[in-house]
């Protein structure tokens, strides 16, 4: 071994089982000349004592391990420089044993920068700069899977088929042990066409999917729900096997679905990687979460007929109102974000356009009088994306909405989300605007029908009318909003009207109403 022109002298392995050796004596000191194979030092191991011959001719340039020290086999003991090379005069004593791990200065840790509020007055993200770990989702799912549906275990193959066909296994009559649904049962169920009808028990759809690797707030595409299970049916159709807790509107069934964990997607068989790597390319295995995103994004695109419409909103009133309310709410420890305003207005608008909040189920359309609002929250360093859900968002005022967003973001960050927190969404908002993007086409979170995107809030020259009715150019804070919808259910005109009404609500914000 040579470092540059110097040759390393290493602790030899004196026997298969020998892992270390002790320097008993240096026969040469720094600066002394030495011939190749001339004894340089003496060592002692638990098998034998021996001399170590120099691997090169030259001058002892450095002694790295002092006499008496015991070091591992392979440790560099000294450096031999070529004859005539400049060698530093011997220091008073040899340096400390080389193998002692060097002090490593703390590596600069890449800390995601806080969102710059001033330069980019984007809607504030629900998830702050240090986003949470991705763990909650799988954990939640596992809990859920184990809870069972009161019948019995769902076998891996049944879970997979159920996922592929969007069937709730609990809806299938089981003929196996203890009423278990067998593979035959579920295949027969599909063949009979029964799967197209709404299942007897509603099934919340957890939404927890990883994003593209982005370190901060909310990345662009919103996760598709990994769950094959349909979203909650209309409450009337939902038999509540247990007393419903004191929530206002009927929640989705409290019975946890027996579906497989969303983070354990089901590739039927691992496909071999095609193609050879060219030099420089690197192959790394995909995490289960990444595979989840891959499959659910693909499935959503394959399922829904995605169309995106955009609208520009003058946020002047919202900006003003936020400035006014913020200090007050701050005292109540509520962080009033633009997202809260948009969420509040969107929920109100949704109630006028139920299909935006609806779902296709077979040949039927599901609508509901409540909004379970999903908010996409990005996790740290691209680890994933969670879409926690605000249940019955229609019952919350602006403060309540802000508080809920803050609460979910906080719990996502501290991994304290509960299974229910990521299930049963009926509509989703995603907020990629904090990076300054002004437009996007998010992917719908299946089995929902639409997703609202919010973008950068920027000051722009804007034509407005003055008191006299003349057109003048003013500087206004403008935000683009997009609605990506499933054209199988929602038509362009319907979406356009939804966006128009949403804009009107935001532009003419009625303080008293909230």
């Amino acid at each position, binding site marked *: 071994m040579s470092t540059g022109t110097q040759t390393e002298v290493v602790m030899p392995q004196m026997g298969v089982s020998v892992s270390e050796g002790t320097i008993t004596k240096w026969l040469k000191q720094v600066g002394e000349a030495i011939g190749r194979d001339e004894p340089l030092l003496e060592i002692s191991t638990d098998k034998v004592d021996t001399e170590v011959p120099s691997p090169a001719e030259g001058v002892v340039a450095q002694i790295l391990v002092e006499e008496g020290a015991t070091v591992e086999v392979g440790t560099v003991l000294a450096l031999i420089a070529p004859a005539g090379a400049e060698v530093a005069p011997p220091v008073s004593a040899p340096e400390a044993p080389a193998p002692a791990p060097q002090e490593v200065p703390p590596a600069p840790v890449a800390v995601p920068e806080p969102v710059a509020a001033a330069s980019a007055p984007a809607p504030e993200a629900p998830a702050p700069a240090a986003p949470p770990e991705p763990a909650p989702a799988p954990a939640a799912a596992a809990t859920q899977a184990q809870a069972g549906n009161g019948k019995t275990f769902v*076998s*891996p*193959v*049944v*879970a*997979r088929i159920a996922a592929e066909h969007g069937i709730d296994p609990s809806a299938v009559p089981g003929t*196996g042990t203890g009423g*278990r649904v*067998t593979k035959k049962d579920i295949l027969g169920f599909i063949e009979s066409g029964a799967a197209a009808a709404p299942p007897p028990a509603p099934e919340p759809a957890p939404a927890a999917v990883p994003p593209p690797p982005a370190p901060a707030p909310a990345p662009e595409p919103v996760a598709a729900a990994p769950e094959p299970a349909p979203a909650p049916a209309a409450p009337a159709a939902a038999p509540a096997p247990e007393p419903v807790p004191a929530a206002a509107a009927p929640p989705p069934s409290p019975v946890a679905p027996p579906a497989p964990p969303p983070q354990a997607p089901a590739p039927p*068989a691992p496909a071999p990687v095609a193609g050879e790597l060219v030099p420089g390319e690197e192959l790394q295995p995909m995490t289960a979460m990444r595979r989840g995103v891959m499959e659910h994004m693909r499935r959503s695109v394959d399922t829904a007929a995605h169309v995106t419409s955009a609208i520009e909103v003058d946020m002047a009133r919202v900006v003003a109102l936020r400035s006014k309310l913020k200090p007050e709410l701050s005292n109540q420890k509520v962080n009033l974000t633009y997202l809260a305003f948009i969420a509040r207005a969107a929920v109100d608008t949704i109630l006028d356009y139920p299909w935006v909040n609806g779902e296709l189920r077979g040949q039927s359309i599901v609508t509901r009088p409540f909004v379970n609002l999903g908010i996409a929250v990005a996790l740290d360093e691209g680890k994933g994306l969670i879409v926690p859900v605000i249940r019955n968002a229609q019952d919350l005022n602006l403060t309540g909405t802000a508080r809920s967003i803050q609460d979910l973001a906080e719990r996502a960050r501290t991994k304290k989300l509960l299974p229910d927190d990521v299930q049963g969404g009926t509509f989703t908002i995603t907020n990629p605007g904090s990076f300054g993007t002004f437009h996007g086409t998010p992917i719908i979170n299946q089995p929902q029908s639409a997703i609202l995107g919010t973008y950068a809030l920027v000051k722009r020259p804007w034509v407005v009318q003055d008191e006299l009715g003349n057109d003048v150019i003013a500087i206004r804070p403008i935000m683009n909003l997009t609605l990506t919808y499933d054209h199988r259910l929602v038509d362009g005109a319907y979406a356009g009207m939804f966006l128009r009404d949403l804009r009107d609500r935001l532009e003419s914000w009625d303080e008293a109403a909230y």
Partner: protein
Amino acid sequence: MAEMTYIQAISDALRLEMRRDPRVFVLGEDVGVYGGAFKVSLGFQEEFGPWRVIDTPLSETAIVGGATGAALMGLRPVAEMQFADFISCAWDHLVTVAAKQFFRARTPVPIVVRLPSGGGFSGGPFHSQNPETSFAHIPGLKIVCPATPHDAKGLLASAIEDPNPVLFFEHKHLYRRIKGEVPDDRYTVPFGHARVHRPGDDATIITWGAMVHTASEAADELAKEGFEAEVVDLRTLIPWDKDRVLEGVQRCSKVLVLHEDTRTAGFGAEIAATIAEEAFEHLDAPVVRITAPDTPVPFAPPLEKAFLPQVEDVVSALRELAAY
């Protein structure tokens, strides 16, 4: 095409290989004048002479080590262990020398060791074992376990042709019990290709050797109840036909792994683990293993019956799978 017993098929294959290839020779204890303990090489010495049908001293180490040396010199030895159990005496020569010589020195060792194995006739602890798994764990050895006369003949021809050490586990219980149509001419059955002994879609039974027939009887029994289990005969354990096994798992979703060898760390465990790794999401029931218990092979008939997997054991396991 003629009807032959399993042992006749083995004898036939060996004779054809020796006629075809002068490099092939037989060595072992009592294989010459006596024709082998089971008479596989009966009449061979008359046909091929004493230097191609070699009676050795009672020296398993010298038999397998000697076969290795002769193979290194270009011959194709077929060594016979009088009973598979005695291969333990030659373990070193299979595992230390034959299995590793090509890896170390790139010198192939084309030997075949014939191993009369298996129980069912009160052979006791030293004449009844199925040690295939011990060797399946050793990289460099191939493991063959024919279940029918047709396969016995074709697999032995492949084994002799193969450039590696091959352990040929022939089941003593099948020697004269199993008959079948066997082509007169030489043919080979390739390694690593499982055979469907009996079709079915409701469960897949993965097995080899004598247990193929046990499985088949049990599957016929269940068919009367409307449950059709396929019986997959692996034929060779190294290499084993993983693709065919996984295909069966995907189609049937219920799996029974059956072997006559003892349970812990048996080859069935490897199969079950592979299914768990690669076909988990196709399972509709836990993988069931039926094997001998973890004991030496006992002598007394009622004990041996309790040791060997019986048709009724497989039937009841299949019923449970059907109901699951």
